[in-house]
């Protein structure tokens, strides 16, 4: 099929047709783009930067939730830390904005305290609905799921409480 015979409006809905360029022409085009972008980057506002950083974090959270594997270094606390860092605010300031005690925030960040539902919802509002309570919750669940699967001391302790079990024969 001859793509050149198709209306441009139709082409751009289904294709990106590249121009024919030599390697040297491509190199020059890339140099030209680099100069144009450099000027724009200087003019980028702090708000625009923050939006880009938040979007990056949101995408990392979304993709991490979808992954089958859990990285013990990447629990709820890890992403909360990133969320706070990109705002360039002191922890006490963020604690105040979330209306929680600074000690509670420290405990959440160190992983010594598990987040409760109110925290997920407050974080959603804090991010102006950008990162949903559902995704903060899912991050926390991922961590709990890993803990249930791997906490052998808890499993040994709880096994003693089970006085009977199903007799299953295959």
């Amino acid at each position, binding site marked *: *099929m001859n793509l050149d015979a198709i209306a441009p409006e139709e082409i751009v809905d289904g294709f*990106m047709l*590249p121009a024919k360029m030599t390697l040297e022409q491509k190199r020059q*085009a890339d140099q*030209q*783009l680099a100069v144009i972008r450099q000027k724009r980057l200087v003019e980028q506002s702090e708000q625009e930067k923050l939006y880009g950083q938040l979007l990056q974090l949101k*995408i990392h959270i979304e993709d991490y939730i979808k992954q089958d594997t859990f990285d013990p270094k990447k629990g709820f606390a890890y992403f909360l830390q990133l969320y706070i860092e990109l705002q360039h605010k002191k922890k006490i300031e963020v604690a105040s904005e979330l209306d929680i005690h600074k000690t509670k925030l420290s405990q959440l960040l160190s992983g010594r305290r598990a987040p409760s539902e109110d925290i997920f919802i407050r974080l959603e509002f804090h991010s102006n609905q950008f990162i949903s309570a559902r995704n903060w919750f899912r991050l926390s669940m991922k961590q709990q799921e890993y803990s249930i699967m791997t906490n052998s001391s808890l499993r040994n302790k709880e096994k003693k409480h089970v006085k009977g079990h199903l007799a299953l024969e295959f």
Partner: protein
Amino acid sequence: MYLLNRGANPPTPVEAIIEPIAVSDLKKLTKKDFHFTWKDFTETELWKLRIADSKDMLGAMSLTYYPLEYRIEINLIASRSDNFGPGKQYDRIAGCLIGWACRLAVKEYGYLACVSLKPKTRLVKHYQNKYGMLDGGQQLYLEGRPLYTLIQTYIDHEP
């Protein structure tokens, strides 16, 4: 992420999925179905688009990463030949694939992210009108607000 099924009356959204092209997919990327010799692009990163309840590829995309420039270049996008032109069944194929490239760029490069392309001259203004692409001299590009808008419109937006 969704495509618009124009075969239905009224047109209805259909869930779409974008995933990496597997080695087993390569033989399906024929010139007859996807207009180009995709073997020439096997050194690049290849992605495919399909609707959620079908394994058939509807679109394909080739990308190259330029980490020092915080940029991803779209080398090529093609829709399958039976879904093309005024009689096509699904809309938004290129938009979703371009939006996906933007998402990959933000994931990798944050606020410095850029997606670029070097389209045929006769198509330049149409890409600009439809996707809000910026004039980068001899090529088009997306960064900042227009790039975030495409992610919102084609990837995150739910119908």
